[in-house]
């Protein structure tokens, strides 16, 4: 096990500051968290011990990407979609409630020196994962284009947030066909032709990943993807969360929670 893969993480008690609906499907959870869990990196995640909603008993923790973190303010944020028992439990939290969090976990995004023009392409909850990356890009003075894909224009979250981080935001959606693979391909090719793209970042859609893999290979543009898998432990012990990856000619299994959730785009196998 390479020393680089070891991360400091802790099980800690956070206090809910706010837990508000963002649009019909998503909620933003803002926590006051202790310093021991706030040495975060964009792309990392937490394992949340969700409270039990009426009549349901989620047992395992639920993985959630870090949407926002601020060590000085002692602040930690998650953007989540209510999907099942665990997230229904999260939705019951009110300000002042305690929440047991475990993190930060996994390997975050990397940003090589030479990558000046970044393009971020995300759909749905994938935007949550990429939000802290946008902030880091701004801090490091990179130019960022964020393509946000959604079912409807009004469901594209975080547009303002990405803009506030200085990104150029392009919203594409299903209703006007702008989110179709063909339309997106044309859009990205045009961008590459125009100003150049040094690296891609993506999350939340296999279709988007496949498109970026193709374009990346064609133009020699590197990239990273944040992946998901059913998890149990979240820290590397149980081998639940494996996915196959290309490693040269070989096909290897990697743990999303430990070697990931961020992986080199070209190595991901769908």
């Amino acid at each position, binding site marked *: *096990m390479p020393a680089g893969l*070891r*991360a*400091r*993480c*802790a*099980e800690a008690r956070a206090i809910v500051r706010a837990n508000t609906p963002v649009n019909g499907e998503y909620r933003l959870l803002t926590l006051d968290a202790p310093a021991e869990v706030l040495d975060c990196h964009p792309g990392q995640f937490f394992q949340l*011990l969700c409270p039990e909603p009426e009549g*349901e*008993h*989620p*047992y*395992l*923790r639920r993985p959630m990407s870090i949407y926002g973190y601020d060590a000085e303010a002692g602040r930690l944020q998650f953007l989540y979609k209510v999907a099942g*028992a*665990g997230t229904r439990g999260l939705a019951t939290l009110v300000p002042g409630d305690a929440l*047991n969090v*475990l993190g930060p976990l996994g390997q975050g995004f990397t940003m090589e020196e030479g990558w000046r023009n970044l393009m971020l392409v995300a759909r749905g909850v994938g935007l949550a994962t990429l939000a802290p990356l946008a902030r880091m890009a701004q801090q490091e003075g990179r130019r960022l284009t964020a393509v946000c894909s959604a079912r409807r224009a009004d469901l594209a979250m975080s547009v303002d947030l990405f803009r506030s981080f200085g990104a150029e935001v392009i919203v594409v959606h299903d209703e006007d066909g702008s989110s179709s693979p063909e339309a997106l391909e044309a859009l990205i090719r045009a961008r590459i032709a125009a100003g150049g793209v040094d690296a891609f970042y993506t999350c939340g859609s296999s279709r988007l990943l496949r498109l970026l893999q193709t374009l990346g290979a064609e133009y020699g543009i590197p990239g990273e993807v944040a992946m998901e*898998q*059913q*998890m*149990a*432990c*979240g*820290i*590397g*012990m*149980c*081998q*639940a*969360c*494996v*996915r196959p990856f290309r490693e040269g000619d070989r096909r290897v*299994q990697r743990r999303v929670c*430990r070697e990931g959730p961020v992986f080199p785009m070209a190595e991901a196998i769908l």
Partner: protein
Amino acid sequence: MKDIRSKADLGVTIGGLRLANPIMPASGTFSEDLSDVFDLDVLGAHVLKTIMHEKRGGNPVPRVCDLPGGMLNAIGIPSKGIDDFRDRMLPWWERYAAPLVVSISAHSVDAFARLAAEVSLPGVAAIEANISCPNIEANGNAFAMRPDTTETVMRRLRAATDLPLWAKLTPNTGEPVEVALAAESAGADALVVANTALGMSIDIAARRPRLGNVMGGMSGPAIKPIALRMTYQCAGACRIPVIGCGGIATLQDVLEFMIAGARAVQVGTATFRSPTVMARLVAELQDWADAEGVASIEEVIGTVIRPEGAGA
């Protein structure tokens, strides 16, 4: 004896092996990775994920699913093989004083015995024979489902190694006591009671099993009454020590198993809910024993009162 100023001794002896305390992880729910979270030397022993001789991939995903009070897993036994164990894992674990218990498994008696010999290396304190994993063989069958197959494999393992040898039993049998006695008579030094119970869950919207492998092992608090019952049965029938395992998550659970007859306990799924749980259990057990004025935790073992006239 009852001196509340002195610290209770949490040490227990398991078939010749002395543990500083009776709390250890269950195989497959523990790895180097947990050293990120707490100092693993607070544990009574370290039990590794089952290894097999050859490199193998494990089961299709999803490999786990959540249940009320626990989970199902069909991880299989993805294994990096014996070479990786010898060359990489074993040296890594040398940093700790806690005894290292290596869990092994195989698909045949011969291969099992060969592997036992191969892992009998300096730095290994005991071998746990996973003769009960319900996922490796078709239809969830395993050696530990029957006394005869248990006896055969344990006898061969006994001949293959001089290390303390533990047999890990399964709840998926109608004859747990006969299986335990077979392991004992074949020379096992201790019994781990027990592995997961074979279960299933279906996603009704998709009409698909929620595990890639269809069926899998159920673990966590939901199986505790079954594992506790087997612990009581086996501890009552055998002279070798029993290590309780199944659904243990709280100090109450630890005490319940020890009172039923377990000399030590393994904690599995609870670590997924709270990675620090084992460290907490060691501290809570110390506090409890100190407060109760127990000189040695071994005093507690098997103290359950059997009501008169009870049927079983």
